[in-house]
C-alpha cells in the first residue's frame, strides 16, 4: 500500500479525505464534484491511489461522518452499491469493503430515495439486513457494515458497533497494524438530539486516527476528524475524554476543521448581529482547549473553499483567525488555497518524524509513475 499518508481533496465546502496505511485505504466522506476547469479530478486520483481486487477498485473502509450532501455528493456515481457480484466493469465504481455510518442514516425521514443520501441509505439497509438475517455473507468484504454510536431507533440489530471511547484496531476482521481509530462521537445524546431536531450535523462521526511509529508504541501522528460536529459536541468530547483519562485521544498533529472552517466549532451562529443584539464572537473556552491539545508542529486543515475576509460562514474568516492564532499562519492550510498554489490536494506523508506536508511536485512522467497526455494527430 506504499507510504502512510493522509490526503485532503480540494472539494470546496465539503469533505473527501483518504487515509493510506500499510494495511488499508480509508475514505472519509465524499463530495466529488463534476470535473471541469479549476475542479480537481478526485475520482481519477482515488483510482490511482486505491488497490484493485478482481479488477475492481476498492476501499477497505468508507466512513460517512454524516449524510449531508457536502459529505456524500455523487456517492452513487462513484461508489458501488449492492452485491459485489452485480459490479459493472464499465462503471469503474469503487467497492466499499466496510462501511461506517451513524444511526441517523436510517432514522432520517427527509432523505429522498434518488439522492446520494438515499442511495447510501439503501446500501446501509441492504448490508444491515444481512446482519439482521444472520446471512453468511455478512462478513464478506463489500457487505460489512459498522454502526458508529448509539442505535437510537433499534434499526441496526446485530450490526457491529463502535461507541465513543472505543479503540478500533481492525477493519474487515483484519488488524490495521501500526494504525488505529479512537472513536469520539456521536454520543447517545447527540443521536437523540439529532433525531429530535433533524440536524444531521449533530450525529457526525468524530474520530482520532492514530499512526504509530515503526518501532515501539509511540504515536507518529494523530489526526482529528470531526465531520460537522459543533462546539457543543466538542465540549462533550473534551469533557468525556478528560474524565475518562483519554487525554491522549484529544491530542492532534492534524486537525480537520469541523464544518468547513465554520464558526460553529467555536460558538453559536450567527457570529454577530448587532441589529438583533447577538454576539457570539467570543470562542468557547472548550473549543480553544481542544485546539490547545495540539502537538509540536501541528497543522490545521480547513476543508473548504478559499477563505476570504467576508461574512461567509462556512468558511468563516474569524474562525480561520482563531485557528491561525493557535498554530500560526504557516501551519494553517486550506484545501482550496493549497490547490490554487500547488495544483494538488493537501497530502501529509507520515513516518516516524510525524506528518510532512508534501508541496513539491515530482517529475512523475519521467519517473514512470504517471502517463503523459495523449499525443498524435487525432487530437
Amino acid at each position, binding site marked *: 500500500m506504499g507510504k502512510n499518508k493522509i490526503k485532503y481533496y480540494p472539494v470546496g465546502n465539503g469533505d473527501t479525505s483518504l487515509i493510506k496505511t500499510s494495511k488499508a485505504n480509508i475514505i472519509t466522506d465524499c463530495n466529488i464534484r463534476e470535473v471541469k476547469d479549476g475542479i480537481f479530478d478526485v475520482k481519477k486520483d482515488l483510482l490511482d491511489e486505491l488497490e484493485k481486487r478482481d479488477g475492481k477498485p476498492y476501499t477497505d473502509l468508507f466512513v460517512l461522518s454524516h449524510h449531508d450532501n457536502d459529505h456524500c455528493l455523487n456517492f452513487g456515481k462513484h461508489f458501488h452499491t449492492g452485491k459485489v457480484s452485480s459490479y459493472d466493469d464499465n462503471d469503474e465504481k469503487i467497492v466499499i469493503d466496510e462501511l461506517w455510518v451513524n444511526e441517523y442514516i436510517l432514522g432520517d425521514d427527509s432523505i429522498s430515495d434518488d439522492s446520494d443520501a438515499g442511495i447510501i441509505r439503501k446500501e446501509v439497509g441492504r448490508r444491515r439486513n444481512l446482519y439482521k438475517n444472520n446471512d453468511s455473507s455478512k462478513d464478506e468484504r463489500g457487505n460489512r457494515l459498522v454502526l458508529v454510536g448509539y442505535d437510537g431507533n433499534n434499526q441496526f440489530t446485530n450490526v457491529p458497533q463502535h461507541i465513543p471511547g472505543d479503540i478500533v484496531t481492525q477493519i474487515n476482521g483484519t488488524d490495521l497494524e501500526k494504525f488505529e481509530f479512537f472513536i469520539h462521537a456521536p454520543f447517545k445524546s447527540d443521536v437523540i438530539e439529532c433525531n429530535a431536531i433533524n440536524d444531521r450535523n449533530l450525529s457526525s462521526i468524530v474520530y482520532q486516527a492514530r499512526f504509530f511509529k515503526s518501532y515501539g508504541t509511540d504515536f507518529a501522528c494523530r489526526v482529528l476528524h470531526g465531520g460537522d460536529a459543533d462546539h457543543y459536541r466538542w465540549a462533550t468530547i473534551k469533557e468525556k475524554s478528560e474524565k475518562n483519562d483519554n487525554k491522549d485521544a484529544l491530542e492532534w498533529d492534524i486537525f480537520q476543521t469541523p464544518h468547513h472552517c465554520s464558526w460553529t466549532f467555536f460558538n453559536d451562529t450567527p457570529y454577530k448581529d448587532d441589529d438583533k443584539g447577538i454576539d457570539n464572537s467570543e470562542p468557547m473556552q472548550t473549543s480553544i482547549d481542544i485546539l490547545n491539545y495540539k502537538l*509540536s508542529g501541528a497543522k490545521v486543515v480547513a476543508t473548504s473553499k478559499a477563505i476570504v475576509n467576508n461574512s461567509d460562514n462556512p468558511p468563516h474568516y474569524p474562525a480561520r483567525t482563531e485557528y491561525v492564532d493557535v498554530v500560526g499562519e*504557516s501551519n494553517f492550510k486550506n484545501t482550496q488555497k493549497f490547490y490554487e498554489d500547488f495544483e494538488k490536494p493537501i497530502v501529509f506523508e507520515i*513516518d516516524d518524524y*510525524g506528518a510532512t*506536508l508534501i*508541496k*513539491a511536485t515530482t517529475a512523475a512522467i519521467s519517473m514512470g509513475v504517471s502517463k503523459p497526455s495523449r499525443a498524435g494527430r487525432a487530437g
Partner: protein
Amino acid sequence: MKQDYTNPSSKKVKIEELKNDHSKQIVSSIDAFGGTLILLDILQGSNNAEYLLLNFLPDIPNSPINDIRQEETIVIITSENNQELPKVFALRDDFPVGLPHTNITKTQRPVSLCVFEDRFEELKHQWSGSYFLQSIKNWLELTARDELHQEDQPLEPFVIGSKGIIINPNHIHVKKLPGGYYKTTDSPIGTPMHRLSVFTKPIENGVVNQRVENLYNLNQLFAEKDIDLMALIKPKIFELVDFDVSEGINGDFWKGLVFLIVQIPILRDSRTEEPTMVGFKINATLGLLSSIFGRTIVNLHSIFEAKPDYSENRLSPIGVEILNPHPSLSKTVAQLYSGIDPKWSDSIFSLIGIGALGSQFFMNLARSGFGKWNLIDKDILLPHNFIRHASTNTENHITENKAEAISNQANILLNDQDFSKPIPKTIYEVEKTKLQKSDAIMDMSTSIGVERYLANELKDVRKFSSFLNPIGSDLVMLSEDIKGHYLLDILEMQYYKGLLANPDLAEHLDFEQEGKIRYARGCRDITSKIPQENISIFSGIAAKAFKSKLNQSNASIDLWRINEYNGVNYYNFKIDNWVEEKIEGWTIYFNERVIEKISNFRIEKLPNETGGILIGAVDNFYKKVYITGTILAPEDSIERPTLFIRGITGVREKLEVIRKVTNDNLKYLGEWHSHPKNCGLGMSGDDKVQFAELLNEAKLNGQPALMSIFGDDKKHKTYFDNYKI
C-alpha cells in the same frame, strides 16, 4: 573556496539585468518549483556577485530532528566567474549552527550550507539552475530529519584544516614534509618540534562552523563544547618541562614548536561513539607555552612558578593552524580502508609458493592488512621474475629469496614486522608443527607434489591450492572443506573428472612448447609466456575467493577463465562422494557416481555380463588409487550370460582424449566386469586368468593391477595387486 559571507549593497537588480549565468539559470528555474520557491529580491554584491534572496518552502515533518522550518530564507550568491558553485547561506537569525554539511566561515552566521560534496569541476556537467535549487531543498528537508548525513557515512571531523599531519601514535616529535604537511617522527633533526596528545570527553557529531585562527579561538571553541582545553594541555606541557629540566637538555628543546593532537570521541547517536582526531600546529615555542601555563624556565635549569594566564591578550597573538590528521599506514588502517572483516586479523595463514601468482595474491591481502602470514619459498628472484612478481624492487631484491623480499616489502608497508614471516625453504623442509598451527594453508606452488604432500601429511588444517593452467588463461582453486573430508588430492581428481565432463574445458591443460621460455640451463628452468595482466586479474580473483571461502565450510573446485572479450567466465565443479577401501596398505578411492554408472549399465545388460575399463590415477608414493571414470563396454565387446570379453573399438581414441584433456594425469587403471544375478563377487577361473594378465600389464606400466567385479544390489569388489612395487 572560502565561504565567508559579505553583505551585498542595497542596490536591487532586476531579473532582466542579471549578468551572471548561474543567476540567470537559477532564476529561470524557480517557476518549476510551483509555490515552494519564491524569489524575494536580487541584490548586487561586490566583484559583480549577485545575491538571490529566496524563500524555500521545504517539506518538513511536524517533529523534525533539526530545527529547519517550513519556510526558510536562503541567499544564493553567484559570481561573475561561472566556474565555481554559487554560495548558499541560510539567513534566519536562529538557524541552527553546527549542523552536518555546513561550511566553516569566519563568523557563525549566516550559516553556510554545504550543498554538494563534489567540486564544481565534477558537477558542472549535470549542473542546472533547477538541479541546484532542488539540491538546496533536499538539503533542508534531509537536514530536518537528520538524514543528510547517512548512517553509513563517516562522521564529520570536529574541525577541518587545509593541510595535514601524518601520525604514528608512538612518535613524540614532528617533522616537516613538502607541501605544508607534517609527519610525526622519532628522530628529529635540528630544533625538535614537540607532539602532544590529549583526549577529550565525547561530543556530538557536527562540524564547527567558525574559523580558528589563534590559541584564544581554539580555547573558546573547546569551551563551547564544555571542554577545558588548557586544563588538558597543561600537564602535558609540564611533563615536557620536567623532562627537560631533569635531563638538562639544551636550549633548542625550548625553541621547538608544539603540535597538539586532540583525540575526540564523536557521538554517532546517543549510544555509540567513534574516535576522531584533529591536529593543531600551535605557533608558540615550548618555552612560551610553559610560561603561559605558569612555569617560566630560567637558565634552562630553574623553574619560576607564576600564575597561569589564559587571557585573550596572551593567547590571541599565538597563531594556530588546523591540521587534518592522517594516521600513518598500519595493519588496522589497511583493514579499515579495505573493509576487511577484523575476525581474520590475527589468523595465521601459510602461503607456499611466492612466485608471480603467490606474491601478487599475498600483496593483495597484505595491502588490506588481512591476517598474519608465513611465506614459504626457497627460490630467489632473478631478472625475469620481476616482470610478473609483486616486487618491483630490482635494485635490492635481485637474487634475494622471494619469501624474504616480499615479506619485507609487506611489513614495511604496514609498519608491522610481525605481519609476515619469510621461510626460505621448501615445504618439505618446514616443520610440520609450524604449518599445522596455521588457520589455513594456501598452496600456490603449482606443484602436484606440494599439493599431495599437504593432502597427505598435514591434518587438522584447512588447505587450499590455486594455480594457473599452462597458458595462463585459467585460474583454478581447490578448497578443502572445513572438516577435511575432501582433501586436496581428492579435489584434484575431481577437477580432472570435471575437465573431462565439460567440452568447454577440453583445452584447459593444453601445453604449448612454443609458449615456454628456458631462462637458464637447467632442465626445469622453464617459465611460461603469460602477460602480467593475467596474473593481476587472477591474483585479485584468488585473493577475493580465498577470503570468501574462509567464511564457507564446504569444499569447492572453482575455475575462472579470461574470455575473448577480456571478461572472466566462471566454472564451478560438482564434488562427488568417494568410496574409500583399504587393500594391502593401499587406499582405493572409487568415485561413487562411477560406481552408480557401472551398476546401472550392468542392470541394463542383464542377463548378460558386461564390463569396461577403469580410468583414474595412482599415487605410488602415498599408495593411493583414484578411480575417476570408466569406458563402458566398447561395441565390439562380447556380452553373454556367463562371459564378457571387452572389445577395443574406440578405446584408444577415448584414452587419448583422457590423457590429453587431463595432461596425462588420468589414464587406464584396469578392468571391471559384471557378474549375473545371484552370483557372488568372487573371481571365477576366467577372472583369475584375466587378473594375471592385468598384473603383467601393470608391471609394464609401473602401477598396481586393478580389477573390479560388479554384482547384485550395486555391490562391487575390487581386486588389487601391487606386486610389491
